[in-house]
């Protein structure tokens, strides 16, 4: 059984897209000879040439804006913004144009754009290197927003994103880049907009995405030793959100915990809690709880373990939900 890191899986997805569709282009800061800061584009420029895979000047708004013109000229741009904290100069282009061009033109201008952004914390990074920008994008109509949690699903999600006719913001959890997974790379399986039920248990539903999924699985394993059986839902896709899979599980367990790195206030947890109330209120035995980052800037390296949801915090939230008394 072959084994892949997330970086290798993403690299393979890009290589195959460049091979199979001559209209795809890969560009961004340092994506050429260097292969990107995280080596996701390693070897691609040598293989496909400097026209299909190219470095850009340091100009994030320009990178995102060029996607519009390239799409109008019939290309499929796959752009990389180097880091979460440096993606913000591109927000105007992404919010004002990438998200809205299809609607503005009544669907006459297809926008098959993928913008990859290495994201989230947990890498002992400096300030601006541990941001969770997902809600800025998820709150913007017209974008699809996906976050892989494992190498094989990273391959699948990136392949599907590149094939998708709509713009996709592809957030890569940096702390999972070197995580390994055994299996075959395939784009068969769940689509964009479909969550994965990674573990099934009848007591509590734990919902997460990206790097925190691994911690949720670890917490579920630990809690199983205490006879608390958790379901773990890996969302994969924040927009579209698979409300059905979440609600189906919560209707069984009656309890839900949402786990994410992003700050608590107006994070994805708030949206998911509201959706659970809309779809499964009568089944709830406890309030939906959130284990999240805090309403503070992302802390320096020596403090980040206190900020990120830990297995202990996830377990504590599950125990609180399972012992909730009305």
């Amino acid at each position, binding site marked *: 059984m072959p084994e892949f890191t997330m970086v290798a899986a993403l690299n393979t997805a890009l290589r195959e897209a460049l091979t199979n569709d001559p209209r795809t282009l890969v560009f961004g800061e340092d994506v050429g000879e260097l292969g990107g800061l995280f080596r996701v584009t390693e070897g691609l420029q040598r293989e496909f040439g400097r026209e299909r895979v190219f470095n850009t000047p340091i100009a994030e708004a320009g990178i995102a*804006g060029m996607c519009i013109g390239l799409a109008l000229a019939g290309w499929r741009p796959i752009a990389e913004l180097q880091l979460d904290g440096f993606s913000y100069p591109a927000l105007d282009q992404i919010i004002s144009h990438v998200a809205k061009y299809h609607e503005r033109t009544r669907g006459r201008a297809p926008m098959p754009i993928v913008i990859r952004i290495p994201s989230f914390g947990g890498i002992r990074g400096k300030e601006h290197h541990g941001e969770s920008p997902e809600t800025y994008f998820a709150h913007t109509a017209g974008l699809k927003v996906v976050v892989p949690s494992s190498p094989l699903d990273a391959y699948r999600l990136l392949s599907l994103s590149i094939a998708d006719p*709509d713009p996709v913001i592809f957030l890569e959890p940096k702390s999972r880049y070197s995580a390994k997974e055994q299996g075959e790379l395939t784009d068969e399986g769940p689509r964009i907009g479909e969550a994965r039920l990674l573990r099934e248990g009848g007591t509590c539903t734990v919902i997460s995405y990206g790097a925190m999924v691994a911690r949720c699985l670890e917490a579920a394993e630990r809690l199983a030793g205490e006879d608390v059986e958790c379901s773990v839902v890996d969302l994969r896709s924040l927009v579209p959100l698979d409300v059905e899979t979440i609600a189906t599980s919560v209707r069984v367990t009656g309890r839900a915990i949402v786990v994410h790195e992003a700050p608590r206030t107006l994070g994805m947890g708030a949206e998911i809690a509201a959706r659970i109330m809309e779809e499964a209120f009568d089944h709830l035995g406890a309030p939906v709880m959130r284990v999240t980052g805090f309403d503070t800037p992302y802390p320096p390296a020596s403090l980040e373990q206190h900020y990120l949801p830990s297995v202990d915090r996830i377990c504590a939230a599950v125990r609180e939900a399972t012992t909730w008394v009305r």
Partner: protein
Amino acid sequence: MTEGDIKSDEPSPLQLIAPDGTPAGDVDVGLEVAGLRELLRLMIRARRLDRQCMALQREGELTVYPPFEGQEAAQVGSAFALGPDDFVFPSFRELAVAVARGVDAVEYLRYHRGTWHGGPYDPIANRFAPICVPLATQIVHAVGWALGAKLDGKAACSIAYFGEGSASEGDFHEGANLAAVFRAPMILFCQNNCWAISVPLQEQIAAPIFRRAEGYGFPGVRVDGNDVLAVYSVTKAAAERARAGDGPTLIEAVTYRIGPHTTSDDATRYRSEEEVARWRERDPIERYRRYLLGAGLADDGFAAACETDAEAWVAEVRAALTALDAPPASEVFDFVFAEPPATFARERERFLEGRERGHA
């Protein structure tokens, strides 16, 4: 001040026709008589339509409207110099460019009618991108298109229109540098109309805009934006240069916004009647009409026919435009995604059900 310049010792913009209509340079720009006459016809159409739009807004038939009176030569002259495969990236004041490019005026004006956003015409078939309001953002779109055309080996260029106010935005600088680095076949076409809403030139920039091109590594030219032949000439040269693979050109067309920034603006609060009157004396249409008549390229009959033609056409546009109703409510949802998410489809259903029950 606000004569299109921030320093008095800058060279005069390129001019081929003097404000009184007499030749001021080599007026042979490579156009036949029919083309030379067409420039006048298009400028007159554009002005008539612009004035009609102002009236329609005052009558409540259009939402806020940004007039371009005074800038007809800059817009028509540059648009007329483009080839059929070249691609226009307008800002929000380029209706005269759209007229010259043959974009359906009613489709274009749906934006100002409030029945859709700024791209209801087919942008790809028309080679004319949607109306772009966030300032200077369209410049990087034009770079992307130009790069795409270059990768396809097409002999075509893009042109991004923007004002001197937009040239202070970061996207101008990113776009200019990207265009230079990629040797993108494009034209950065700045209409310096002297005012960024109420802020005059000397409060916006400290050096002339065309000079910036040198810093990015491509040519910058300054042209009298009220001289349609001069604008045509420099744009044609820039387009040929771009298509030949020699990279971008920055054109600064010095002109003047005779009207307010938009119908919501009161320009009398920040500039004098005298200043506006001085620019009216440099009216681009009157200048060019005199030139054609003086050179024997047209007679009074032709000029009068242009007015009649424009009047009839504008009446048609007005009738079609005022007949436009709001699109079906479902269109709020219909074009957001090519493949709408399931959650989104449910929201659409709820919205439509609510309307049927009279809740919305």
